[in-house]
């Protein structure tokens, strides 16, 4: 089954358009960061270029072997990530009140980012091996893949990192649904979900997290407090109007009214300086990427490849939706980065690693 294949054939099957879309997005991201970092001391975009290079190397590495080898690695990797997530709770480096970072010598990274990939791989392996019940998964059988999801989500939530926890939950939830859930079970899960949300609100969420949600529901109520980020972001985006203020000319960005403009609010920078036209171009590029990812999934030769592809698509989609949703005031402000555009090593490397997996599945679609 895992026969050695001539490299030439692999390269001819390489999904260049997919890589192209990703690279275009990354380039726009760099250009955008160069504008956002004009007033900052550090040349953020240069660092980002290095991170992209590292991310690209990881992607190439992940393409270099048949992804089906990962079937053996999927569960151990999941366990390793769980260990790291537990570890980060004890020895993690705190930043802004949350323990998210693990420091290994010169390397600082967020295990919660790795968890996104690990959950996709582990669930893909589970569904690869599990025989799909005719009517869909019932409660009796869904608890095992659900457990693969719930444990890391709970740990990340504990850091606390509500945004990443929600993203992991959304990715895994997408896979659960994709694997087909029996109707009554779906209803039951819906009820459980609502109950969990209520419980989280009452007992688990920290006050600053609640404040963000309330600020989201009524941003003007506290313009200088929790609602400040959201308000300033909407002003930045809205004031871009049709064509934008021009690269490096965004007043919200350059005069620093816009918070977190390299990371969570990087889309607001883009939208302010390039307007509605620029914003639509970015969203169309993401849509194109999603179409291509689903195409890869549909051509995959076995369930492992299908679930990996759908998982990667979900990973990108949910981050795009939550991030742009939050900067435009549709969703509460939770710390979620925008893939390929936001600054940050963990985010870049995770996104590129996911792309590597997708490309791997794509280039080996004709093999068996």
């Amino acid at each position, binding site marked *: 089954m895992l026969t050695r294949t001539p490299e030439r054939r692999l390269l001819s099957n390489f999904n260049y358009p997919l890589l192209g879309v990703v690279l275009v997005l990354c380039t726009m991201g760099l250009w955008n960061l160069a504008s956002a970092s004009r007033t900052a001391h550090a040349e953020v975009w240069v660092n980002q270029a290095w991170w992209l290079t590292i991310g690209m190397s990881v992607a190439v590495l992940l393409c270099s072997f048949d992804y089906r080898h990962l079937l053996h690695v999927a569960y151990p990797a999941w366990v390793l990530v769980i260990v790291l997530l537990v570890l980060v709770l004890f020895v993690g480096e705190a930043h802004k009140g949350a323990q998210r970072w693990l420091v290994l010598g010169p390397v600082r990274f967020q295990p919660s980012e790795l968890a996104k990939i690990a959950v996709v791989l582990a669930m893909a392996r589970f569904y690869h091996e599990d025989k799909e019940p005719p009517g869909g998964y019932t409660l009796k059988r869904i608890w095992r893949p659900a457990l693969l999801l719930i444990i890391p989500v709970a740990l990340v939530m504990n850091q606390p990192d509500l945004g990443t926890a929600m993203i992991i939950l959304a990715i895994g939830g997408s896979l659960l649904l994709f694997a087909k859930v029996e109707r009554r079970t779906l209803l039951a899960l819906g009820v459980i979900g609502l109950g969990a949300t209520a419980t989280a609100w009452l007992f688990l969420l920290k006050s600053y997290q609640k404040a963000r949600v309330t600020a989201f529901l009524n941003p003007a109520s506290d313009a200088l407090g929790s609602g400040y980020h959201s308000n300033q972001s909407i*002003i930045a985006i809205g004031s871009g*109007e*049709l064509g934008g203020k021009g690269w490096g000319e965004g007043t*919200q960005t350059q005069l620093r009214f816009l918070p977190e403009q390299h990371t969570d609010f990087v889309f607001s920078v883009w939208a*302010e300086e390039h307007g509605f036209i620029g914003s639509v171009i970015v969203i169309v590029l993401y849509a194109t990427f999603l179409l291509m990812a689903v195409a890869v999934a549909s051509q995959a030769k076995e369930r492992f490849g*299908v679930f990996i592809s759908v998982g990667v698509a979900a990973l990108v989609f949910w981050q795009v939706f939550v991030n*742009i949703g939050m900067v435009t005031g549709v969703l509460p402000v939770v710390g979620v980065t925008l893939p390929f555009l936001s600054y940050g090593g963990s985010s870049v490397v995770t996104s590129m690693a996911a792309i590597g997996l997708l490309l791997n599945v794509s280039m080996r679609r004709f093999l068996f």
Partner: protein
Amino acid sequence: MSLLPTQGQGRDYKARFAWVLILAIGTLLILIGRLYYIQIVRGEHYARLSRSNFVKRLDISADRGMILDSRGVIVVDGRPSYDVEITPVFSPDPESTLRRLAEVLELDDEALSAVLARVDAARGLERFRPILVRRDVGRDGLEWLELHSIDFDGVDVRVRPQRHYRYGSHLSHVLGYMNEIGPVELERAREAGLDYRMGDMIGRSGLEERFERWLRGKDGIEQVVVDAKGRRTSLAEDSALIPPDERILPSVPGHNVVLSIDMRLQRIAEEAFPGLAGSIVAVDPRDGFVLAMLSRPTFDPNRLSGRISARELRELAEDPLQPILHRTIQQHYPPGSNFKVVTALAALQTGTVSGPEQGTSCPGGYRLGRRRWRCWRDAGHGFMDLHTSMRHSCDTYYYWVADRMNIDPIAEWARNLGFGRPTGIDLANEIPGIIPDVEWYRAHHPDGYQRGFALNAAIGQGDVNATPIQLVMAYAALANGGTLFRPQLVRRIEDAAGNLIEEFPKEETGRLDVSPETLDILVNSLRAVVHEPGGTAFWRRPRDLDVEIAGKTGTSQVVRIGAVRVRHEDREYHHRNHAMFTAFAPVDDPRIAVAVVHEHGGSGGRDAAPAAFEVIRGFFELEAQDESERAEGSSWPPEGKQSPPGRLLPRVDPEPSSEDHRHASDRSPDRLAPDRLYSEETRG
């Protein structure tokens, strides 16, 4: 071999992929819809909001107009005040910083804790806003701060215009003072469409208050670009982001107010005032314009407009002598014998006496029923007619006429002379005084009107009360042939360049229906008070002055005289008589009328008349001096022309009476002592 499911399940997967795509693309379309809404539909709104984020309006405060005296000499203008401020966000330890500063800046505990409270209360962006620590810091403090600035992060010195009353405590009640506008006033000003902001200074009393709308200029605006922390960026950003015509809107300076008061005469009056409390007011009887005006004790408007502490303010307010009270218009006194001209006029007009020759004998008092009204001279004056009774200030004659004509004619002629109602001077809170008549006693006295009340009223005692300004205006009317004028302080308003904006004409408020012969009789009797032997002011008359003066002394009782007369010096301060003198000159062509009220001063002839004579002497000396300067062809003041512009050619009195207030107070902190707030130079 594919691990993919069989055909049937493959179709199932197609449906799933379709769902995935529909949901994903659908969601992204929602985001595009949202972007369309905020960027296209509401775009302009947010563009405005982003603009208001970075555009900060800085106010360019307009120069307040000056107050000039009748010759164009600056009385009130502005000078720089060096204010120390602290910006909480830049100060690492505001508490210890302020404690160290307190000593150098003479900040008392109360003020210190007030500033600390404001620093602690500052939250968020407010922490970038400077908080005033000490207004108007002196030279020593500034030098010390400069030397130690390295230890005081977040402490800055800001220069702001400070109202400068060049004559210190002179003319203070007339000029008034300024302080910060209060929240309620701010609300009212805004409703009236006036452009005031928090922290603006507003005229508080006197002319500063009444002429606020003339003196206050129109503030300008400068728009600059600031970043999220409220810090100014660069001029380049300003010009890039703000259209040039919106960047600076220049301020318009306020108008200058030109007084009718000559500060040289004012100073003479200030120096002539003999005691602790009272008033001097001099007017031109020909038009009612005020020539000099003062009230004692006084205060220094520089202090009230600037760095006065809460404690000093309290002490000023609680002082039993009420330095803030403007006695010339806000305090009334029993006018005493000054009122006898009114009784005499009433007696002549009602025919109670057929002429100046008709009179009565003064045995030292007048008996009515079972009571005896005492004349001030227990031994009596002998036969008294109108002329001699005025000269000697004999009370008996007036008891006699009052008993024959009753109180109502006295009250009527008092009102004809302007008593019993405000004169309408350009100052706030003027009181009307009291002129009682039969009606009044029915309303105010438990037993109603009694005949004896007319006797008291006839000599300006009992319930008769008049303000110093009423006294001087009434005498001015006698002097000018019977015309009552509204007293005015401001001759005209000029703009900053000296162009005439508005000139105030004289205003008649009444005319006495009295024959010139009758007026002559009265004026002649008043002349006798000063110039005939036996006149109550005869011994104090300015013998060297070649001007005839008509006047009347007054010694008004504050408490009822007991069986035994007590010497003035032996009485408690508040039981002593008020000394008064009201006069005009020259008798044949009056150009000045003056009233002096010396509270608890003793006798009118001895303790009030000399001050009035000083003012009159000063007036004519200045008149002669100006006359000779004109004759020598000196250009000052140019005849027939307006007084020259203020700001372009500021004219400062060659030797201002008050030294530079700020630095004087810095050198000697003990000047903060409350009694030093009043002018001391005339005491004793």
